[in-house]
């Protein structure tokens, strides 16, 4: 270990279950303290009952990260006093976590080892007001999966990439809702110059923030004295601040959670969960590159979002996959980005896109028309074939008709013709554009180009 920077992460992911981890309260609520019951309020006499969906989602994630699933899993009590924690202990896992020993591989092939993956309940939330602190327990008991890495990352950028890859896997597994659920991380960071004195940074939200927080902390460690401590991340000020030193570190006094039995995980159950895991982005992109000769950059970009990847595969089965990849990357994804929409928020579907690309592939429509139709497909569902027919948008390839048009343009644009003859290629493009304008974009640009050149010879 002689890298300049050493980083390890503990990531908390909210699992997309309908109900909480140990009671049947819904996981979504608008008004404070409306999704609560005696169990998630920790009332005397209430008992936790495991939400098996959360167990399944946790196992799914563990398996997707290459972890081994424990044959028996147990929950534990982590005891500390805080107003947002209804029982003043959190039900989590200590000795027997759900998964152990997994990994995520970064783009450059570097392996980030994952030590463990376990389930735990979220505490409630505190809202600070001028003269009061308000407690909202809607979040109390929300299922979280904690992923703990080995200290294998050597730069803030790697930490960001790790989180991005993790988010991508979560999206593929369908166990995480990017709009509602929150991804939070605690980071351990140390630098060689300060003898790798370990500092923990708590509560960093999102993958952009992780890089920011770590960059700040690394620079801080270079210029300040570093001691063993826990620091918080203030995303408004963009700084980390000291929370407590190592001497004040809490002793959580873990014991086995006695209200929950030991869960014995049988191999059939694991197989069932495993069978629900789709081919993940990395493997999918690799397959496209190998089998369809898709450009590696395009393949990886398209594979990032499972919905876009699924759409692409459906189209690529009907039209040339390389053509499909160009159009999905350059038009579909560009439109989604410009409008800041997810695929679901657009009207795109494989039928419409396949039709338009088939028309394009068979040279029935021009590049320009195809582009226009795709823009429309983002907003409403219709049949491109019928649309093209109705609006007479088929490519005009009739040389006789086009020749008449070309001659007309030549007489209309003497200046451009003159410039072209002087050797200005740009003027030819202008003349082609004029012909296209007359045909509302339906003329085959290649034919127009050839015609103009031969006429002007």
């Amino acid at each position, binding site marked *: 270990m002689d890298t300049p920077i050493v980083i390890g992460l503990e990531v908390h992911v909210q699992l997309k279950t309908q109900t909480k981890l140990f009671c049947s309260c819904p996981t979504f609520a608008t008004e404070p303290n409306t999704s609560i019951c005696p169990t998630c309020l920790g009332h005397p*006499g*209430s008992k936790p009952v495991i939400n098996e969906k959360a167990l399944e989602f946790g196992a799914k994630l563990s398996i997707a990260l290459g972890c081994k699933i424990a044959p028996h899993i147990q929950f534990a009590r982590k005891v500390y006093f*805080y107003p947002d924690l209804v*029982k003043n202990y959190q039900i989590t896992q200590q000795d027997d976590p759900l998964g152990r020993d997994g990994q995520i591989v970064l783009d450059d092939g570097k392996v980030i080892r994952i030590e463990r993956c376990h389930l735990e309940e979220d505490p409630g939330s505190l809202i600070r007001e001028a003269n009061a602190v308000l407690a909202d327990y809607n979040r109390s008991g929300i299922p979280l999966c904690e992923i703990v890495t080995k200290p294998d990352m050597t730069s803030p950028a790697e930490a960001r990439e790790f989180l991005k890859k993790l988010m991508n896997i979560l999206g593929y597994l369908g166990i995480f809702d990017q709009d509602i659920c929150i991804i939070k991380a605690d980071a351990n960071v140390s630098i060689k110059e300060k003898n790798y004195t370990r500092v923990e940074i708590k509560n960093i939200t999102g993958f952009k923030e992780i890089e920011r927080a770590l960059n700040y902390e690394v620079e801080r460690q270079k210029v300040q004295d570093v001691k063993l401590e826990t620091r918080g991340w203030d995303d408004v000020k963009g700084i980390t601040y000291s929370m407590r030193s190592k001497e004040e570190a809490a002793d959580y006094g873990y014991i086995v959670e*006695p209200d*929950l039995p030991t869960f014995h995980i049988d191999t059939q159950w694991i197989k069932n969960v495993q069978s629900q895991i789709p081919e993940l982005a990395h493997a999918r992109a690799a397959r496209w590159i190998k089998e369809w000769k898709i450009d590696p950059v395009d393949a990886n970009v398209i594979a990032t979002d499972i919905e876009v990847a699924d759409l692409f595969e459906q189209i690529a089965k009907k039209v040339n996959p390389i053509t499909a990849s160009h159009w999905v990357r350059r038009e579909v994804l560009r439109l989604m980005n410009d409008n800041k929409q997810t695929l679901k928020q657009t009207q795109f579907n494989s039928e419409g896109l396949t039709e338009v690309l088939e028309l394009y592939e068979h040279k029935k429509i021009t590049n320009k028309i195809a582009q226009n139709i795709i823009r429309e497909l983002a907003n409403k569902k219709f049949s491109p074939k019928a649309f093209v027919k109705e609006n007479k948008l088929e490519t005009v390839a009739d040389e006789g008709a086009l020749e008449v048009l070309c001659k007309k343009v030549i007489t209309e644009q003497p200046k451009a013709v003159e410039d072209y003859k002087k050797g200005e290629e740009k003027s030819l493009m202008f003349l082609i554009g004029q012909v296209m304008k007359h045909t509302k974009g339906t003329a085959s640009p290649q034919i127009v180009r050839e015609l103009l050149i031969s006429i002007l010879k």
Partner: protein
Amino acid sequence: MIKKFVKEALSGKIDIVAHALKCLEQAEKINQEYHYITEWADVETQAKKLAEQLKNGTAKGKLFGVMVTVKDGICVKGVETHASSAILKGYKPLFNSTVVQRCIDEGAIILGKTVQDEFGFGGFAVNVGKGFQKPLNPVDKKRATGGSSGGAAGAAALFDFPHIALGESTGGSIVNPAALCGVVGICPTYGRVSRYGLLDYSNSLDKIGPLAKTVEDAALGLEVISGHDSHDSTTSDQAVPGYTDVPGVVQGLRIGIVKEAFGETINNDVRKAVLEAVHKLEQHGARKIEISLPYGMTYGIPTYFLLSTAEASTNLAKYCGMRYGAEEQLTGVYNDYFARVRSNNFGDEAKRRILLGTFARMAGQRDAFYTKAAQVRTKIIEEYEQAFKQVDVLITPTVPMASPTFEEIKKLTPVQCYAIDQITVAPNLAGLPHMSVPCGKTGNLPIGMMIIAPHFNEQKIIQVANAWTHQ
């Protein structure tokens, strides 16, 4: 007694409202003298509901019209439930515990909550919380009822009407007061009866069970409250057999006498009474075999106190005056406030056990205490499994002595107090069904005999108890 009453009540021969009010009146009178009840339920409304059912022909249930008292630490919807601790003053549960609901579903009338050692922390029911009165022994008011289900045992002894008391045992809190008050108490197998709605002392040890005057009534209570509950993940889904029709036959039954439970620390009269009872059972065809349980009898107490206090110290963390129960003036940071609420409202024994339990699970101590105790517990369970290869049931005195006076108890150190549990903690640690039945007297004070059976063999202890009481 109860079966006959229920039959009459269902036939409409009894004015159920008048009966209920008469019971309430009698109980209130006894309570003024003996302090068994902490809160009364609305008896009249419940009784009127039953009268209505009788009128429209929907009356039914194994406990129709029977009075049920509930240990204070077991939730009754809308009735103050505080495990006899000042920290829960004013707390009214939003739901019924499963055992209470099952009794109500069988037509029972909830009479009230019975006093106990605060959160179950004691063997004499003298450790009641601040503002609670300790219950007095039904035979001699200068003496303790035993604990922690002291109010339940006293009520079972003195209430002279069809009545079942629901108690709870962590290390002996059902059979101990049953023995000292001269009633029957059954502590079922761990997982036989739902703990949903029980204020946790030590979740891996807590068991709810019935106390009553007769074996038959206690068995009926057990039958009603037993069975799987989706609200408590530690309940078993094994079918519940009938407990009220077990014949009292012991012909050929192998009875193990636990050698260590008849040693020097046991009062002479107690030892003699229990051995005589065993002799009588032999005369009815049982076979006596001496059994040694060195692990359970030697390490039971320390193992029990480490595990139970470790769990208790986490269970009691939630009581901090923020969401329910006692409150204090809101000053300082949350830590100061929590500390003030807890310091002012927990009793001495609760504080002692929180400290002990917190110590046992601290990072530096955990392996030596908490984890080690869990390992010893496994050894104790294995020791019983071995014993039950040779015998069908085990018999011991329930507690080493008859009820001490309050004066005598005052002179005991905490560790001497814990010794009252020396025989009962082992079957509790092992989660085995056990029962105390009255077994003679020393002077005018009752003696209890404890019968222990393998897991989920409640019928066996009832079988022996029936043989003993009907002989």
